[in-house]
C-alpha cells in the first residue's frame, strides 16, 4: 500500500502518569515558584503530531528527561526525537514546540529547540532553521503554516 505519510505506522507509547502540581505557593517576597522540567513538559506533552492523531508524548518525540531548564538564567532547551530520521515534519514539530513555549513562558525566557543528536538525517540544517528567529517569524506569517501549527497546538491548551 502506498501511503502519503512520512511514517505511516508509528509506535504509540503509553502516556506518563500526570503528577498533580502543588498549588502555586508564593514566598514571602511574592516571587512565584521557579519553572521546572515538569512544568515545561506539561506545556508541550499534549501537542499533536502534524500527521498523526497522537500527541508528541505518545509518540515519544518528547520526554521529560530531554528538557533542560534553568529558571535562574531563564533558559530552556528542548531536545526532541523525530519518529523517523528522514522526517520532513521535523521542522514543523520544532516550530510547534517553539511557538507553544513562546506563548506559555514569561518573555524573559531564552528557548533552544534541537533534534536529538543522531536522530535526523539533516540534523544541523533542522537545528539551524529552528533557532533562526527571523525564519521562525516569517514562517508564522504564512497562513497555511500557522493554521497547521495552531491545529497541533490546540490539544495542548487544555
Amino acid at each position, binding site marked *: 500500500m502506498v501511503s502519503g505519510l512520512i511514517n505511516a505506522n508509528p509506535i504509540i507509547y503509553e502516556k506518563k502518569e500526570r503528577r498533580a502540581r502543588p498549588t502555586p505557593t508564593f514566598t514571602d517576597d511574592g516571587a512565584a515558584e521557579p519553572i521546572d522540567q515538569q512544568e515545561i513538559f506539561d506545556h508541550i506533552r499534549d501537542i499533536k503530531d502534524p500527521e498523526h492523531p497522537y500527541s508528541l508524548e505518545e509518540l515519544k518525540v518528547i520526554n521529560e528527561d530531554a528538557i533542560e531548564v534553568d529558571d535562574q538564567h531563564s533558559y530552556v532547551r528542548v531536545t526532541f526525537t523525530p519518529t523517523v530520521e528522514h522526517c520532513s515534519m521535523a521542522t514543523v514539530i520544532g516550530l510547534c514546540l517553539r511557538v507553544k513555549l513562546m506563548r506559555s513562558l514569561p*518573555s524573559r525566557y531564552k528557548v533552544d529547540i534541537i533534534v536529538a543528536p543522531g536522530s535526523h538525517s539533516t540534523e544541523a540544517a533542522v537545528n539551524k532553521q529552528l533557532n533562526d528567529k527571523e*525564519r521562525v517569524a516569517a514562517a508564522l506569517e504564512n497562513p497555511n503554516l500557522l493554521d497547521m501549527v495552531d491545529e497541533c497546538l490546540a490539544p495542548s491548551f487544555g
Partner: protein
Amino acid sequence: MENFNEGCELKEFQTLEGHSDRVWSLAWNPATGHSGIPYVFASCSGDKTVRIWEQNLSTGLWGCKAVLDETHTRTVRSCAWSPSGKLLATASFDATTAIWENVGGDFECVSTLEGHENEVKSVSWNASGSLLATCGRDKSVWIWEVQPGNEFECVSVLQGHTQDVKMVQWHPTMDILFSCSYDNSIKVWADEGDSDDWQCIQTLGESNNGHTSTVWALSFNTSGDKMFTCSDDLTLKLWETDSRRMQSGNEFAPWRHLCTLTGYHDRTIFSVHWSREGIIASGAADDCIRLFVENNESLVDGGPLYKLLLKKEKAHNMDINSVQWSPGEKRLLASASDDGTIKVWELLSL
C-alpha cells in the same frame, strides 16, 4: 579623540514605546542632529508599521511623529534613509520594498519595488544615493538605480549565496556592495565594466577564517578600510583591506581577516555598528549591549587588537536586534528589541 581606556558609562536616556510587536531595526536620519535640526530616526517592526521618531529641541525627548502603516502587509524587517535624508526605504516580508518621501512633514509612499520572490530582509543606499540594494530569502541581491521622478529600475539581480541573504550594506565611499548570509559567508560585489556588469569579486567564508554560522550584520569604519561582521557563531570578526589600493580604484583590493572577538557573547549577535570615533557596539540575543575599542597596548605587548570597553547587562528585557550610533555631535546610541521598545543611550565619559 578622547581616551576611552578610562571608565565610561552607557546611560539610558529614554525608552520609546509604541510598536505592538518586536522592533527589528532602526535608522537615524543622517541629515539630522546638527545645525539645530532635531534628531530623527525611523524604526520598523513585526507589527507591520514603521515609526518616525523626532527629538523635541526644548525637552530633549523623542516623540513619535508619524506611523507609516497600511502599506506593508507583513513584518517590516529593515529601513534605511537616503544620504540626503529625504527618502526612507523599508524592506518587508511582504516581498516589497517601499520608498517614502517626507512631504511637508507627512510621509508618502512614492514607490514600491517588487521583484523578490518572498521576504525582503534588508535595504541599503549607496554613498551618493544613486543606487539601492535589497536582499532576501530568495538568496538573491538586487541592485536598483534611482531614476528621476522616484522611479527605480532594477539593473542587476545577483545570485551567488546558497541560502537567504540577511543583510546588504554599501561601502561608505565606493560603489562596492557587501552582503552576508545564512550560508555563513560575506560576499563582495562590484561593477566590473561600465554596463552594470555586477559580479561577486570576493567571498569571505570559513576557509578565509570566516564565520561558522549565519552572518547577521556588518559595519564599516568611517574611512571604509575596515569592517566588522557579527554572527550566530557568537563572534565578531574584523576584516581589513589595503586603503591605498582601494582608493586608487584601478584594481580590487581584497579583504582579509584581521581578528576575531570571541568569548564575549553568550547568544546570537544580531547587530554591530561602528561609531565615527571608532567605538564598536554590538547587540545580541543575550539582551546585552557591548562596546569595544581598539586596544592601544596591543602593539606593545602583542595583546588583542580590540578590547571590551563596557557591557550593559539587561539593556532590554529581550533580544536586541539592532544597535545604531547617531549622526551629529552627540554620542548617542539607539537600540531596538524583541521587547517592543527602542532605547536611546548616551555614552558618557566619567
